[in-house]
């Protein structure tokens, strides 16, 4: 059982890390702010989500698991808000400069 969980952790965390890679590449390679934003948020939320998912079996106790999920939810909320706000700032005729 332990081993199965460990394998799950390794798989999920690896996949998560990969999404971070994807996000970074998108941020670096995509041509304009809006597409970059798109790449970034999709990737880092999925990445973080998979990492959290992978860590859940390793969590010691219920509270620790809840905290992990809470971290992910908060990051999701922050990410979504930031995307909205930044996208609007970009659309409003470019960033205020």
């Amino acid at each position, binding site marked *: 059982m332990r081993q199965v969980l460990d394998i799950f952790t390794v798989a999920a965390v690896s996949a998560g890390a990969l999404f971070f890679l994807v996000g970074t590449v998108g941020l670096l390679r995509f041509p304009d702010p809006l597409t970059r934003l798109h790449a970034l948020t999709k990737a880092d939320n999925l990445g973080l989500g998979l990492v959290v998912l992978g860590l859940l079996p390793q969590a010691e106790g219920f509270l620790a698991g809840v905290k992990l999920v809470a971290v992910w939810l908060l990051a999701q909320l*922050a990410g979504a*808000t930031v995307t*909205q*706000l930044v996208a609007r700032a970009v659309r409003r005729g470019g960033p*205020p*400069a």
Partner: protein
Amino acid sequence: MSTGFALDAGLVLDAGLAALVLAVAVGAIVAGTAFAAVVGFVTYGLLLALVWVRLAAVDVALTEAAIGSGVTGAVLIAAAARLRPAEARSAAERPGVPLRLAAAVLSALVAAGLAMLVLLPSAPAPSLGPAAAVHLPELAIGNPVTAVLLAYRAIDTLLEKIVLLLALLGVWSLAPDRFWGGAPGQPHAAQQDGALALLARLLPPVGIVVGVYILWVGAVAPGGAFQGGAILAAMWILVMIAGLRDAPATGGRRVRLLLVVGPAVFLAVGLAGFVVADGFLAYPASYAKPLIIAIEVVLTLSIAVILGLLASGPPGRERQR
């Protein structure tokens, strides 16, 4: 300590992290615009929080995450945006080459001196850890950092709260006279920003729970009054920025009482030590823990209000009576 591979992986991580911190710092110094520099600084604070975890100082990591990166970053970003019109002009006043060169040499010398000291073997490194550990049972406090802050070196913490209050009064003192006692900043227009308003509705309840948890856990694990207070302050700032709640009048009776209640209770307990224990800031045996927790609770309240108002700036509106 763990096996060879883990140690190596850890060391590689540490080396990368150190390099990253340096790179971000260099970026913040050389960045073309103040805004880029400030965003660099925000990431610097974030990376430092990771470093603190690597250095087994999670209490500090919490503080850095809340203050170093979070609230300080918000203050600096807002300032950079406001100051943009003046930037080109003040950036043009670069000092001459001789001064820059002299500063570079001086800074390099200081850095080299410090690096030399870091590399010099100084075994065994002195530590007050054992001394701090010996007295933890007397205080019934599990987190040694909390014990240092509220017992062994409590006078520092007390004076530092006065520093915070004076900094806030200093910020207020910059307001025009007619605004004295009024609320900071301009009233924010009713928010059309759905996303921001949503965030400001959803986040604070969670944030308050987290802040209280961090405060409460501080007695036995990393956390405590300052970290908890900083999180609460951040939530309050968010609500104010989003325009859901207006900043309070700085002259209001309740605000003033909230500001001073923490330090005042701390001071009062400290003075009571003259009577019921052996001296200023001494806690009577077996009452240490409840007293420390009581102090922390009121301190958290005051810290949250002070930090929130510090970030809000000087009064900018006339006081409604």
